[in-house]
């Protein structure tokens, strides 16, 4: 049996094994679940060295020499990286009753590094989003209410410069949606006014429209993955490999 056939056969069996949970939890599924977890765990321990530590830590610590005919030092060893090993190892104290607090040290450093990045990440992410929320709510071109369809594609750039009436209306609704939904997330303000209460309630409905739209487009992707698996089982395996129909 050629290797390709064995490989695809294993894949199909594993797929069916995991699908069997749809009928009910059974031994077949349990077998593949544990195998899955084991393989993933083993792979994790492989990539731990080969993908994470080898280059970013080990090579950085010992430096690197190119292995051409005339070796050139590419990178000097930053010996201080050696400190990271004992610091990382402090995480393991979590299993000790007495010194469990020490696991907080590597964790504290990771958290600190993450938190420090938030300021610039925040600005880079939300700055443009804020700007995009400030579209004009009155037309800058009153020649037509709807955005005209250009007869010549070259006119598109000119048309794109303006906001037409219909776009202004959409921009206005978008602004209202944004404000209503934001007001839904105001937690500490006790709205006495009915109008504000209506606004937060409206915010929740508008949110649901948005969620519905996300659901709709997400569903497509999930189904396409299923279709791909069906393609794998029925076309790649049964049709092309097992029965050699092309």
């Amino acid at each position, binding site marked *: 049996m050629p290797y390709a056939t064995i490989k695809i056969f294993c894949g199909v069996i594993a797929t069916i094994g995991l699908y069997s*949970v749809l009928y009910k*939890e059974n031994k077949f599924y349990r077998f*593949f*679940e544990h195998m*899955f*977890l084991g*393989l*993933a*765990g083993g*792979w*994790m321990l492989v990539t731990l060295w080969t993908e994470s530590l080898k280059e970013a830590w080990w090579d950085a610590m010992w430096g690197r020499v190119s292995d051409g005919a005339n070796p*050139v*030092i590419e990178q000097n060893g930053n010996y201080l990286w050696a400190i990271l090993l004992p610091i990382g190892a402090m*995480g393991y104290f*979590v299993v000790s009753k007495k010194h*469990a*607090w020490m*696991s*907080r040290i*590597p*964790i504290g450093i*990771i*958290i600190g590094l*993450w*938190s420090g990045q*938030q*300021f610039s990440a925040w*600005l880079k992410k939300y*700055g*443009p989003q*804020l*700007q995009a*929320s*400030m*579209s*004009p*709510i*009155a037309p*800058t071109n009153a020649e037509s209410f709807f955005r005209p369809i250009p007869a010549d594609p070259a006119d598109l750039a000119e048309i794109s*410069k*303006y906001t037409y009436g219909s776009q202004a209306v959409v*921009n206005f609704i978008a*602004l209202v949606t*944004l*404000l209503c939904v*934001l*007001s839904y*997330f*105001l*937690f*500490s*303000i*006790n709205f006495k006014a009915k109008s504000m209460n209506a606004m937060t309630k409206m915010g929740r409905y508008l*949110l649901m429209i948005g*969620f*519905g739209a*996300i*659901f709709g487009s*997400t569903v497509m992707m*999930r189904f396409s993955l299923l279709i791909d698996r069906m393609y794998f089982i029925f076309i790649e395996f049964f049709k092309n490999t097992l029965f050699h129909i092309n």
Partner: protein
Amino acid sequence: MLDLIAQADRPPVVGTQYYDAGKVMMLFTFMIVFFLLLNIFRAGKNKDLYIRRIAGLNAIDEAIGRATEMGKPVLMVPGLGALNAISMQALNIFGYVTRTAARFANPIRLCCGEPAVFTVAQEIIRDVYQSEGVPERYEPDSVRFLSDRQFAFAASVSGIILREQTAATFFMGEFFAESLIFAETANSVGAIQVASSTEITQTPFFIAACDYVLIGEEFYAASAYLTRQPVLVGSLIGQDWTKLAFMLFIVMGTVMNTMQLRSKATEAVDGFGERTPLTEDRLVLPNETTMGRIFGPAKPNPATMKPREADPEAAAPEGGSQ
């Protein structure tokens, strides 16, 4: 710190080679930080602050109560995200859940998919049992690391739900595609599910399949709501101020943009912030409005930069490709 901003603030003249990092937006960020810190310190004095009702959080006690009645375990999953604010927040909420469960001597299962999160989770959960005075009820195997691989994790959590017939499940944190696998599996064994994902794309699935869902920032409000710690409540008020400032800023920006984009331009502004009088008749362009300049700050003109000296210590050509 302030004179640093002043440095960035200098107009791009000869000799200045600092990229203007968007000083207004940077100030805006500092304003948020100020709002948060101010309210955190303010809240320390005023204990009685209002937080609106969050339905999903009131359900926590009910869910644990039911699990106790049935004698089945409570399952908690802090998502697959790395160790950051989201997973820390999830663990804070789980600390509360565990405390309630510990009082009822209800077994718990906390499944992690990230080693750093797993480390913190172990420490927090053990701490909770200790502070409740029942350290003997803490089983080390109740906090588990399953896999850092998304779908191996999903398969394993499903297996645990189905085999142990969990009665209450809490999915909080960064969930991705696996969200619906968990939610539907938990539903099939009749568990009460309280869920929250900071991933907006997953929220609709949780809404469809779970009993209670915390949407968006409700997740961050949760620990303030549950514990009423002054620091958390203060921070929440600071967050509200920030959102109000956003709303104001957006409305202001919209009005300004609307007015400015409808008016005739008198001068053109290029990417280096240099202005030239206009001869043609045209409207103001988006990058020339006040808001456009705030969000797209001018870059220094390379033509006017002070040249830099060559590095005498620079390596030989083949090593120069740094």
